[in-house]
């Protein structure tokens, strides 16, 4: 980072593709009939924004591993941050299906762009909305909702990924402040963030959440370089060396892992929709390519083995759409369980990754180039398979849910 003036990019920093984004949505089972007019208008609006602001530059962003930071503000303008948070706090006042659809359309563009938005909405705005005092909500949420401020979420540590309860980051009481020490790892947006929602153990060993301002003394957020995935999104560490956190910045009520896990449930739900977007983009590209590419005198889509791939892709996408629609309906009624969200996240991300791999084969050699979005999605999805609860951990959550036995440890 820091390559742009004032740390914020402009469109001029990127090579604009001459290729037109021809993406069309796919809705084999008429799931659209289950959506409201608002859902469909939101979907079309985000799709139009992605075609206008993301698609022309995303291959260059990924190629050079540059985060298009000017899009933070644009994401705020279209209302992609915390759409299901009430409007008075800077959200959109929409339901959870609308939130899912927005994530789907963003990830159709790129998982890194979706990550920028889902971290801000689900992992920063949501915990502040749920756990902070009214004063703190009014202080932070409207500016986060508009994209004026950028936030990040610090839970994972270098030695504690799937086992966050083992965290060593800690706070010690010091009068009107807590003294925060420790380090967090794999933090989306951290090098450009104005605030961080950080989870740390208090002196009783209980996990507490707090808002830490990035200009605090002792706060640093070095960028993690060398990622072959989510290259258009910036990832870093969070390092706290005797950072003084005012007591009013600590969430008053919530103690224990329930706090961060409730945020993750929300974000994982968004990811389960997002994965459909990435899968649809790969399928859409593969379908078009199969109708245009001619071998042995006919389009490769006319061959049985290509049709098998495409038919299985649209079948899996359709199943994932129905899973998400039902999960969204449960979320809207406050009935979705974290285990149900785990099933959708695991199934849909794996589905998308498999489709990316099959789509790559249909594109032949062209599939490995950035003329097509396939390899970018495939590399992104390797991250998505692991973050926000790994593929295996989500399986064990389902296993525990159906058997009653904990196989984590």
């Amino acid at each position, binding site marked *: 980072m820091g390559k742009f003036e004032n740390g914020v990019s402009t469109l001029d920093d990127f090579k604009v593709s001459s290729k037109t984004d021809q993406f069309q949505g796919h809705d084999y089972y008429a799931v659209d009939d289950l959506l409201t007019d608002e859902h469909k208008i939101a979907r079309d609006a985000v799709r139009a924004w992605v075609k206008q602001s993301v698609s022309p530059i995303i291959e260059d962003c990924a190629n050079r591993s540059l985060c298009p930071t000017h899009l933070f503000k644009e994401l705020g303008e279209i*209302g992609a941050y915390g759409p299901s948070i009430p409007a008075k706090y800077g959200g959109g006042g929409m339901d959870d299906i609308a939130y899912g659809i927005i994530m789907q359309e963003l990830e159709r563009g790129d998982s890194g762009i979706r990550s920028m938005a889902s971290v801000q909405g689900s992992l920063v705005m949501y915990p502040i909305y749920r756990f902070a005092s009214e004063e703190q909500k009014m202080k932070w949420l409207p500016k986060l909702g508009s994209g004026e401020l950028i936030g990040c979420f610090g839970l994972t540590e270098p030695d504690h990924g799937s086992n966050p309860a083992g965290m060593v980051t800690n706070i010690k009481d010091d009068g009107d402040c807590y003294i925060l020490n420790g380090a967090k790892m794999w933090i989306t947006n951290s090098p450009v963030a104005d605030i961080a929602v950080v989870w740390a153990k208090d002196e009783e060993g209980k996990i507490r959440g707090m808002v830490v301002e990035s200009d605090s003394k002792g706060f640093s957020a070095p960028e993690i370089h060398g990622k072959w995935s989510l290259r258009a999104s910036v990832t870093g560490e969070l390092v706290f060396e005797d950072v003084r956190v005012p007591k009013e910045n600590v969430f008053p009520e919530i103690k224990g892992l329930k706090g961060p896990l409730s945020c993750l449930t929300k974000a994982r739900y968004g990811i389960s929709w997002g994965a459909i977007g990435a899968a649809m983009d790969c399928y859409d590209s593969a379908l078009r390519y199969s109708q245009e590419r001619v071998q042995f005198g006919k389009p490769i889509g006319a061959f049985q083995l290509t049709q098998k791939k495409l038919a299985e892709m649209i079948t899996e996408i359709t199943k994932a759409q129905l899973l998400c629609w039902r999960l969204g309906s449960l979320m809207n009624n406050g009935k979705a369980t974290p285990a149900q969200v785990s099933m959708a996240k695991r199934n849909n991300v794996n589905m998308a990754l498999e489709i990316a791999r099959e789509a790559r084969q249909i594109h032949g050699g062209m599939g490995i180039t950035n003329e097509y979005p396939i390899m970018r999605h495939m590399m992104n999805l390797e991250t998505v398979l692991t973050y926000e609860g790994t593929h295996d951990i989500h399986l064990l959550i389902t296993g525990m849910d159906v058997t009653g036995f904990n196989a984590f440890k």
Partner: protein
Amino acid sequence: MKLLVCVSKTPDTTAKISFNADHTEFNEAGITFIMNPYDEWYALVRAMELKEATGGTVTLINVGPASNDAVIRKGLAIGADDAVRIDCNPTSSLYVAKQIAEYAKEQNYDMVFCGKETIDYNGSEVGGMVADMLAMPFISYASEMEMNGNTATIKRDIEGGKETIEVDTPFVLSAAKGLAEQRIPNMRGIMQARRKPINVVSPVDFEDVSSVVSYELPPAKAACKMVDPENMEELVRLLHEEAKII
């Protein structure tokens, strides 16, 4: 200023067009509908810009059945204040224009906007007919407009150039590319649109004077022939014998 924007529902630009068995009706099954882009991107957005600059109201009007409400909601999400839907299944441009004019004549609009054409039937007729029925000037294919008090300076596209016109309100204008830039509705606008009124009005009686006899699809595009770059003779032969352009 009191502004009226005529919005039409059209098939998505990527829709596969087909007709019923006797080719007298468009087959709507499986079609995704959108707001006519000329109405949305240029007419509505320019009306919104005028409202933002000078105050006033923007009302949408659509002539069609309840299934058109989704398209109207999008216009409200972009920022229109309210909407009117004349509840009917229109049969021709004249029928649509008659319904719009009958509604508008009592309302004292300063300007009536429409797109230069709809992308389905490409009639380019409604604006001119409405203007005639309301006894207002009609400025077609407007690609630039500036307001100074009640006087508009409008550039309109003509073959190979532009024509500049001055006109006082009230008038009817059809919007071409360039009049404004597409606006993407944001989530807050989409939610606010839910609470904006769509006033459903019964149509006035009108006996149409024409009817559609049949539709035909344009001939299918021939497949693209690829020629080896080394084989210029073959390219020349194809251009000469098949395409007959050299």
